């Protein structure tokens, strides 16, 4: 969630500039040439901070503060009732050496992320390409495909999903017509993760809209030139569309990966808060929620949250590092 909000980037712009202005004269070591200007700049800097205040209060009070607390809790035993007790690294040690549920939770979360995200991106890109192909009626289809993402995260959809994939529900009955007898998916240990992935993929609308915007930015001349050179549709896709779209692909990939790691509401509702069947919807966030609020192990839950944060950060870091080799920014001569 936090990753999708663009506010930090917007806000840090003026902040950085204001701070840079304020400190610029000192850096040079020379006395200011025009004191009047310096004063004005300083005033601007202050104004910058003043305008930032609402966001800063929120950022410190609602994000940094709780995060610092949570880091502290992760080194304690804290049951919400009595004061936290410092236990050093015990929570982390237990996490990696003595908790089969965590290992299972990490495994299914990884499967969900690594399988679900590429499928979702491919679906979004595919539909975006189709919608981009012709303008006629694309407005309608764009809305139609986007609709699931609007309602997708809601509780009601998860409930509907649960009913659809139960034994003798629409999906079970529908597949039976084709002679595929799978039974219900919701209570099935091996089918519930695929079901969760389908639910995630179905909500490709947001990603699709971003792809579509990216596709509209690709200059038509490039396609024309490629066509003149005899490039077929496949070749044009590979040599023009993908490279031109790579910044957008990178952006979507990053957001989707982070978002997928944080899957919670749908799993929580579909399993009625149990993470079942047999722990197969016990994704990391569901597991840490259960530890914190059902078992009263807030310290342990905080440790899980920090492990999740580190894993997501490492993956994001790796992605940024690979950027050079496959993401092409306009005006970049590579």
């Amino acid at each position, binding site marked *: 969630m936090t990753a999708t909000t663009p506010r930090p980037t917007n806000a840090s712009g003026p902040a950085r500039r204001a701070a840079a202005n304020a400190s610029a004269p000192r850096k040079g070591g020379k006395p200011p040439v025009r004191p009047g200007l310096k004063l004005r700049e300083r005033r601007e800097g202050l104004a910058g901070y003043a305008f930032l205040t609402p966001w800063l209060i929120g950022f410190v009070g609602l994000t940094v*503060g709780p995060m610092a607390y949570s880091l502290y809790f992760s080194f304690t035993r804290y049951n*919400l009732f009595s004061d936290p007790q410092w236990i050093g690294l015990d929570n982390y040690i*237990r996490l990696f050496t003595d908790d089969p549920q965590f290992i299972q939770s990490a495994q299914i979360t990884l499967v969900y992320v690594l399988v679900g995200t590429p499928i979702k991106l491919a679906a979004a890109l595919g539909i975006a390409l189709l919608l981009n192909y012709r303008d006629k009626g694309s407005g309608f289809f764009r809305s139609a495909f986007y609709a699931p993402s609007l309602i997708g995260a809601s509780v009601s959809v998860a409930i509907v999903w649960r009913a659809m994939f139960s034994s003798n529900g629409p999906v079970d009955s529908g597949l039976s017509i084709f002679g595929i007898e799978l039974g219900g998916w*919701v209570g099935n240990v091996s089918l519930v993760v695929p079901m969760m992935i389908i639910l995630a993929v179905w909500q490709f609308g947001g990603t699709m809209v971003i792809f579509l915007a990216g596709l509209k930015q690709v200059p038509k001349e490039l396609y024309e030139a490629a066509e003149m050179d005899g490039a077929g549709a496949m070749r044009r896709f590979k040599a023009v569309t993908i490279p031109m779209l790579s910044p957008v692909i990178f952006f979507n990939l990053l957001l989707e990966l982070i978002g997928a790691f944080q899957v919670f509401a749908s799993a929580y509702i579909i399993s009625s808060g149990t993470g079942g069947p*047999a722990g197969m919807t016990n994704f990391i966030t569901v597991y840490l929620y259960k530890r914190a609020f059902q078992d*009263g192990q807030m310290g342990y839950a905080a440790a899980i949250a920090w492990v999740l944060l580190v894993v997501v950060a490492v993956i994001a870091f790796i992605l940024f590092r690979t950027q050079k080799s496959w993401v092409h920014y306009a005006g970049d001569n590579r």
Partner: protein
Amino acid sequence: MFNTKRTAALIAAATGTALVLAGCSGGSSGGGGEFDPDEETTLNFAFWGNDVRAGLYDQAIDLFNEEYPNVSVQTSFLPYPDYWERRQTEAAGGGLPDVLATDISYLRQYSENGLLLDLEPYLGEQIDTGPFDEAVLGSGEVADITAGIPISTNAWGLFTNPTLLAEIGVEDFAGGDWDDYTAWIEDTTAAAEAAGVEAWGAGDWTGRIQVFELQQRAQGEELFTEDGEPNFDEDDLRDFWNQTTEQREAGAFIPQQRVEEQLPLGAFDTALTASEMTWDNFGAGYLANLGEGYPELNLIEPPVTEEGAKDLYQKAGMLLSASAGTDHGEAAAIFIDFMVNDPEVGAIFGTNRGLPASETARSSSDLSGLDAQIEEYEASIADRLGDAPPVPIVGFGNIEEEFRVLGTELMFGTVTVDEAVDRFFTEMDVALNS
């Protein structure tokens, strides 16, 4: 680059604000508070349950307001697991409701952490203790205080669904030992399949910690000692779970998949199983969920482990407690008294909250149907009733839940009995030490 001094000052100021904000949520001290009938008082009251129970509480509170028109009672209710999640968060923030329903599984945890008001000063004054059996009343005494007043008692029992059994075409379970019960389940499941009814004899009965407790008690062992130490070992648990390994594999029990699909209802609520062992106050809820197609239930005693053993017990099914932080201690005590003792309130609830613990509430309620069955049942098992176990240790709620989850995994076949035993002891260790 940032101007570091200024940035630091800014961060310090902002952090300070955050700390001040966080500090505001500290627990409030106090408790007590005298009641003046002429003064407007508001009591927050939380209980777990469903719409049906909420409707009954509304009626009861209307009665209360006829007598105490200046006390306005704000109710809130949630299903059982969500209820405790919410209370846990409130407890951490110091904002428990003035009056709250509590369960014996959580009572020690809340009491030992000083979250509940000691009701002792009100006993015999605002709260009439005359109509209570002393042992039952005593179950609300934890950590040297009277932490809760029992609303009801309940006992472990075996429910069967006679209408469903008639559809399947088998006789009701006639009593016997655990092997007899298991054999009856196998027969019922087979008969249902033959009759083309989608139903099973029961779910795996080793999935509940109470059944384990029952069998341990039959051998004179409580699950936990007075000091809160586990009183059973890996082998005991392994043997317990292995009693039905064969039936689990052979499909005598309802597949766990079908059970999961019914959540939040259970398999017995949805007429997919013909029998279920649980606390006897669950009957009313079962009937409501089963609907008109299944108008009656039978309630019989659970299978016998050891002839003549006192393995069953009565416990406080649900208690009313007051928050240590309430400003209206006396009003809360008066309200609690009314909700547990008042004859008309007793008549409104019947056995919805379990068989009333208070004699006045019980005798005035004209028990009929299932309510009467439950009363008869608790009388009929008198020979098997032993002393109630010590008030559950802190964390028993978690241990109970872990036991249930492992039971479902055994049914799925995702863990072996040995793995389940390991995991249970690991989790129990953590729960007992946190």
